[in-house]
């Protein structure tokens, strides 16, 4: 019954957001789509790090796999858009399962380094295989919105609708799985691996499952990001993985709802940076580096003052008051 209520809540909020998009500015609609995609990308990290306790600095690489496979199936097999998302999601999940098999045997620092190596290394493959079309990247489109939506229904609105529906579907799945048996298993693993193993949890299998699902979620986010932007090595490099980790840390790593907050911050930072850069005189050096500066400063300050994540800190604070 509880999950039925949750389903209605998800459908209801999706409908409201879809309706809202008809009323607001074009640029904001596009940013809305970006926020939804980042939220999905961040929740892939929350699922992995916050629930199962494994670190991944390379979820940007899974997003790249999702984006590239989705784009390739559209270009070469002319699959309908929805099926390209499915392909993107599952191929990223497959890659996640492969990596997860190795990752389950590794502890923190090794895993962090290995996934970072993946995030740096994978985008360079684009220049190695002609099918991936180098720095130019691949064309991956949503197609024009259906004509019966009317003249005023722009491409950005169409982007937003596709993105939102897919993100909400996936979020619903993620939300359910984290409150299922598997979610509890992961939490037990994170809390105390030895105790979890003693109570009959398969440590390796659960860790691999978490990695697989996390990669799949990231893969969908990547396909969507490729659709509204472009599919190329520069968009899916270390910067993306870095942004996801920042977003996850800002939103508290342990809470799925917080991923929205992290996503809003990620999209807001470039806006804020351009305002400040304008005040400082818009020199090229400042405009191109200020977003990175703000983001990394925010990241450092967050871990410095709330080492357990802001959400946890607030929870503690409340507990102390009572």
């Amino acid at each position, binding site marked *: 019954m509880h999950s039925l209520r949750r389903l209605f809540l998800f459908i209801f909020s999706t409908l409201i957001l879809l309706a809202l998009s008809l009323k607001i500015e074009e640029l904001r609609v596009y940013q809305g789509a970006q926020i939804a995609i980042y939220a999905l990308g961040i929740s892939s990290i929350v699922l992995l*790090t*916050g629930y199962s*306790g494994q*670190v991944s*600095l390379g979820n940007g690489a899974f997003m790249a796999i999702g984006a590239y496979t989705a784009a390739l199936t559209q270009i070469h097999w002319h699959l309908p858009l929805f099926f390209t998302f499915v392909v993107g999601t599952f191929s990223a999940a497959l890659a996640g399962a492969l990596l997860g098999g*190795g990752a389950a*045997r*590794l*502890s*923190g*620092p*090794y895993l*962090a*380094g*290995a996934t*970072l*190596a*993946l995030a*740096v*290394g*994978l985008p*360079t*493959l684009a*220049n*190695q295989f002609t099918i991936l079309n180098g720095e130019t990247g691949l064309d991956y489109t949503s197609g024009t919105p259906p004509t019966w939506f009317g003249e005023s229904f722009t491409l950005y609105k169409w982007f937003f609708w596709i993105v939102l529906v897919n993100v909400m579907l996936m979020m619903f799945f993620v939300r359910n799985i984290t409150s299922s048996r598997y979610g509890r298993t992961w939490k037990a693993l*994170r*809390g105390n691996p030895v105790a979890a193993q003693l109570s009959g949890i398969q440590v390796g299998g659960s860790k691999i499952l978490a990695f697989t699902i996390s990669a799949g979620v990231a893969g969908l986010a990547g396909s969507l990001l490729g659709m509204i932007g472009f599919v190329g090595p520069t968009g899916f490099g*270390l910067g993306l993985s*870095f942004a996801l*980790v*920042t977003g996850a*840390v800002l939103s508290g*790593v*342990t809470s799925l709802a917080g991923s929205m907050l992290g996503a809003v911050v990620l999209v807001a930072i470039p806006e804020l940076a351009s305002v400040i850069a304008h005040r400082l005189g818009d020199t*090229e*050096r*400042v405009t*191109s*580096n*200020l977003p*990175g*500066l703000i*983001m*990394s*400063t925010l*990241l*450092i300050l967050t*871990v*410095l003052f709330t*080492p*357990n*994540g802001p959400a*946890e800190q607030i929870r503690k604070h409340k507990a102390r008051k009572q």
Partner: protein
Amino acid sequence: MQQAINALLIGISNGFIYSLMALALVLVWRSTRVINFAQAGQAILSTYIAYEIVTRTDNFILAFIGGLLAGALVGAVVEILLMRTLFKHVSDGPVAALAPVIASLGLLGLIRSVIGMVWGNDQKPFFPPVSTNGFTFGSTTVPFSRMNLLIVVGAATVMIIFTLIFQKSNLGLALRAAAFQPEIARLAGIRVGAIRTTGWIFAGAAGAVAGILISPNDAITPYSLDSLLIFGFVAAVIGGLESLIGAVVGGLTLGIGLSFILTYIGTSLIFPATFVVLALALIIRPQGLFGSKAARNA
């Protein structure tokens, strides 16, 4: 045959630089149990300072020393201002345990942005102090120049000095004690905090030397040492992450191995090849060549 010798020579020269980066990562890991991703940032900052000195004074030796000292200083500042606070909370919870690693990633981003603001994101030419034309023997020219010789000699000197300090002095012993049993080390009269900072200082210097030695082959940008970080990490893992000798052997193994792969299979495969080497190292010998198995789970 000639091709194999060339591959070996390039591999040795690169391998020494990877070893230095690996050494920096191992030193930090041994003293504070953190993989310091900001090592690439600290190294590139030191390299920019060396670049600034060399363009103003045209004296490479001065620039080398200046960069090395800057690297050491940055290492100390990072440890004292940032990491020390984070380590206090490490045992607070599962997320706090990751805080130092995440902070080091943030620091990498911060240092790059600051460099970009001060020097710009464009490529800066770092002119080599000595010839980069390969030595000629009779009619054949090998891809090993005076610059490569400088790299090997410079890196080896740093390594020998470090080895002497860590194997022959009490400092090395104190560093190991502080890493493994901080409480007991403190009871034995070791100033654990100061010892940890020392580890970061040496690491900063090693990273700086790696950056200064690798850069004259190429132009520098705020991002140009990212790949070195990955190579250094892989080299450190091959060597076992615990051992200084392991870092050197790991770096040389990786350098020579990659050089052969690039010569015989294809120059564009450098990152996939690195990842394969890392995967193989973790599968075949997860504890590393010189590490103990228990260390991996520490």
